[in-house]
């Protein structure tokens, strides 16, 4: 099949749009997360979202987002906002516990309490790694609409609060000492992060979500030395990698989500090499 033919199928269109929208959102939340040394949080939180999905599946909720989103947002706020305030357990340890614990609880709950028949292992595998073929990539029309709305909201919030997001990433102490409220912007970022991860997890699986948070941000840091430049580059890298991955997967019958990740890894390696060479010769 050729690319135009593939594009005529609604499921290809949904998958393409969903993956590009989530690439924009995830790369936007990824830059502050990586710079604040919360790189691993993307994976931890997508596992929390997975646990939420498991519970939603077991109690047979029709709209699983109603459970997954608040749960993920709550976990983000606890980790970002208050991790430093309870010194009894370090941020590093609590993130590790959350990552491993929620994955285990999710898997346990699905296997123990699921009343629905069907292939549980496949359902688990799909929520974690996305579909193995594009047909099973989870995007449905109403979820694509939701993704579009959320992307617009995220982009508008980022433009509106851009300078404050910079400040809260660069130096919260300065904000506080000059009478501002960094905690309000940390909270805003946490809510955005939680919402995006929950949605992206349900559309693309948790592994791709975590990848879209770290790889474009890290690739962008090889390309640019200013905050604005890194933000822009991250979005561009992510938006280019997703369709490249999807079409490669379609044409060669590869698993789409992990193919997108492969493309992202390749982009990172390529851009790092370019960066190193540029430093050698310039």
């Amino acid at each position: 099949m050729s690319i135009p033919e593939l594009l005529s199928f609604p499921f290809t269109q949904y998958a393409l749009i969903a993956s590009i929208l989530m690439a924009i959102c995830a790369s936007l939340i990824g830059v502050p997360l990586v710079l604040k040394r919360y790189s691993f949080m993307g994976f931890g939180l997508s596992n929390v979202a997975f646990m939420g999905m498991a519970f939603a599946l077991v109690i047979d909720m029709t709209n699983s987002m109603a459970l997954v989103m608040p749960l993920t947002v709550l976990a983000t706020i606890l980790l970002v906002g208050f991790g430093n305030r309870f010194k009894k357990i370090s941020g590093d340890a609590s993130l590790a516990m959350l990552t491993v614990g929620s994955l285990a609880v999710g898997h346990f709950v699905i296997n123990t309490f699921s009343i629905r028949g069907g292939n549980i292992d496949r359902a688990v595998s799909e929520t974690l790694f996305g579909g193995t073929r594009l047909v099973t990539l989870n995007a449905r029309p109403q979820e694509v609409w939701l993704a579009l709305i959320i992307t617009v909201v995220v982009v508008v919030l980022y433009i509106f609060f851009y300078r404050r997001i910079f400040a809260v990433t660069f130096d919260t102490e300065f904000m506080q000492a000059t009478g501002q409220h960094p905690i309000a912007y940390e909270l805003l970022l946490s809510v955005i992060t939680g919402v995006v991860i929950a949605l992206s997890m349900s559309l693309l699986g948790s592994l791709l979500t975590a990848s879209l948070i770290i790889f474009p941000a890290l690739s962008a840091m090889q390309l640019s030395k200013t905050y604005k430049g890194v933000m822009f580059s991250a979005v561009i890298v992510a938006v280019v990698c997703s369709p490249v991955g999807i079409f490669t997967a379609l044409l060669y019958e590869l698993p789409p989500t992990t193919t997108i990740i492969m493309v992202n890894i390749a982009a990172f390696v390529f851009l790092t090499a370019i960066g190193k060479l540029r430093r050698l010769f310039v």
Partner: protein
Amino acid sequence: MIKPILEVTDLCIGYDGKSILDDICFSIADGSYLCIIGENGAGKSTLLKTISGLLKPVYGTMQFNVHRREIGYLPQQATIRNDFPASAKEVISSGALSRGKWYRPFFSKEDKERIVWASEKTGVTSFLGHCFRELSGGQQQRVLLARALVSAKNAVILDEPTAGLDPEATKEFYELLLKINRDEKITIIMVTHDTESAEKHATHILELGGQDPEDLEEEDNDNYFFGTSDAYVERGRLQ
């Protein structure tokens, strides 16, 4: 008498409700240059953090007679990470945030003028577009000072700004501070190790700890010294 810009009354400072230094009282006039000196562990940084509003006082009051949003702050170097992608201009501009309302997404004309002014004052105009982490230590501190000046109409608080700088850069930085204090009438409140330059530049000195044990035995004497720098030098000569 000029109205004091900062009044500290019976202040006890410390962490988590545990006091490490009690009953500090002092006040400084607008336009002063105050150096806080003392041994390591005497509570210099804790006091500065309390003054900047990063820590709550354990007891007592600390009153700024200007709004906190009109004060600039220059943190200890270690708190700024050295792998952060940001241009010098982005760093300086972030100082203007304290001047605007939260619902104003972009800089006003006044903010932009202030940014240009602060960059010129600190002599960083030539490398505004450069990456912050690639600047020398002295240049980085000047950029951070420019950021503080963008937000500060009245006072700048500095936490050991010359730590880690070479002697030449240190000297330049002190001269810059003195110029800003004298020309712009901006109050300087600074923690420093450098007693010698504190004596030379400051109008007032607050020395924490290190008081004569015999003096401390008398009930009324506290474990700190506050006075003009001349009084401090004079006292040093007598001891």
